[in-house]
């Protein structure tokens, strides 16, 4: 696989979020989703955001992707201010967003094709990433013929095949059962280890957050702000057995406490 120059030359950028404000709607109906949020993600970092439902986690990712317009503040990815969506910021959505009219292989091929990459090279890329997510046998299936976990694996392959500088993931495994979830987490860590992309990952599963992250950002309830940042520092490669380790449990307790305080504040 190292013959593929795409993987030997890892491309990744940093993400700078500076005092970002997001307000939906106008006047009395206005909802302040994010209120002056700031943090920085370094290249190659696996950064996970957790927070109560409705605190603006998805909104934040949509802002970084350029799919939503911010009300104030600044977002810079790889030195460039974000003004609109672009292929340098790949995204995996919580809802299934594979193109139903394309086969698995054609879905993965979609980004490279838009870039004008030649068919022969596209075939190599598609083969590589389908192999990475273990779906080479399903190249000619349509998304409707796949299970939920398989769909998200294709979505990950599709985002990576486009060789983005950062990968944004919005609760990509949220709809999966715990067994599938675990194998997806293992798979994602392995792929991340190969590709070394900057990852900004949203979840509400605390185990998942600690297991995956270099750093966990805990958000407060709406309007969303960063309440605390936790450096995980567990050695890699990580296995599922870590969930039993004392410092894993300590971190988990700390995050739970932070989220619980937030609930208490609201009531």
């Amino acid at each position, binding site marked *: 696989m190292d013959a593929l120059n795409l993987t030997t030359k890892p491309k990744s950028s940093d993400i700078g979020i500076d005092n970002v404000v997001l307000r939906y709607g106008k006047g009395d109906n206005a909802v302040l989703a994010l209120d002056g949020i700031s943090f920085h993600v370094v290249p190659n970092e696996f950064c996970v955001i957790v927070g109560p439902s409705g605190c603006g986690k998805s909104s934040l990712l*949509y802002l970084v*992707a*350029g*799919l939503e317009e911010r009300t104030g503040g600044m977002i810079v990815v790889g030195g460039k201010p974000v003004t609109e*969506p*672009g*292929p340098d*910021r*790949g*995204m995996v*959505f919580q*809802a299934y*967003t594979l*193109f*139903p*009219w*394309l086969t698995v292989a054609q879905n993965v091929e*979609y*980004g490279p094709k*838009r*870039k004008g990459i030649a068919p022969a090279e596209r075939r190599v890329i598609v083969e590589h990433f389908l192999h990475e997510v273990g779906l080479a046998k399903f190249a000619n299936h*349509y*998304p*409707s013929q796949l299970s939920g976990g398989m769909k998200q694996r294709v979505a990950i392959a*599709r*985002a990576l095949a*486009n060789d*983005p500088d950062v990968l*944004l993931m919005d609760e990509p495994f949220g709809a999966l059962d715990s067994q599938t979830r675990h194998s997806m987490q293992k798979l994602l860590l392995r792929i991340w280890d190969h590709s070394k992309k900057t990852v900004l990952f949203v979840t509400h599963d605390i185990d998942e957050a600690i297991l995956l992250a270099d750093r966990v950002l805990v958000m407060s309830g709406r309007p969303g702000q960063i309440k605390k940042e936790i450096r995980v520092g567990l050695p890699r490669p990580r296995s599922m057995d870590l969930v039993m380790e004392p410092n894993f449990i300590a971190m988990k307790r700390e995050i739970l406490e932070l989220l619980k305080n937030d609930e208490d504040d609201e009531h």
Partner: protein
Amino acid sequence: MTLAPNTSSLVGNGVTARVEEGQAGRSVLKVIATPFRAVPRSLSITLGFMVWIAVIGGWFALTYSGAVKEMFLPRPESVLSTTISMALDGSLWEHVFASVQVVLIGFVLSSIVAVPLGLTMGTYRIVQAVLEPLVNFIRYLPVTSFVPLFILWIGIGIEQRVAVIVFGVFFQQLVMIADSARSVQRDLVNAAYTLGTKRGDTVFHIVFPATLPSVLDVLRVTMGWAWTYLVVAELVAARSGLGYISLKAMRGFQVDVIFMAIAMIGILGLCTDQLFRGIRRLVAPWAN
């Protein structure tokens, strides 16, 4: 199909396979009474045929018993013999050809404009803002009331009949296609953006393929309406066509010809319907 193999083979033998033992009988009943549940193909074909046989049988009964005068309702075999003799002397094909020509030209002209315009209208709010108020007004105007106007403007040539079809079909197509474009899942478009799709390419790369199955359904349904408007167009100003011969037959009390013309239109409509279903299966195999 989760149906046990032995029960499905029982049903497979036809509807007449009456099951005495409760167990299997209940499960057949359960299958046909379950919403959206597929029934055995042989059963649906048999039932479809039986309805036809019942209708034609009723027709025989009404005419042979003398309950209805032959002047109002012809005997089945006289419709058949009229059809055969008109088919043999070629006049039937001439009229069929004339009608098919009008329907096809009108339908194709309308669809060529309505599909791209409807997709654009559903995708871009500005196009919707411009077109929707006018289109929603026009599409409630009765087509029939425009026939005299079209004759005045365009004359009584084939152009006039084509205009009736276009007028009857176009605005409905436009609105329905715009609706299906509007219902494209927003995150599908968002995903396309993050994969490098340009804003200007969204209609072609995302909205068009995503709505292809429903666009084909719209075309199939409006094709049926085109056949309806054909008769309106041909009743007034035509020298050939299936609508024209039925009007002429009414003047000569040839009820059998009217029946034949109606049946011909039904058969042609059925053919175009099947054609569109076939096209849909072919170009959108993922949507079945």
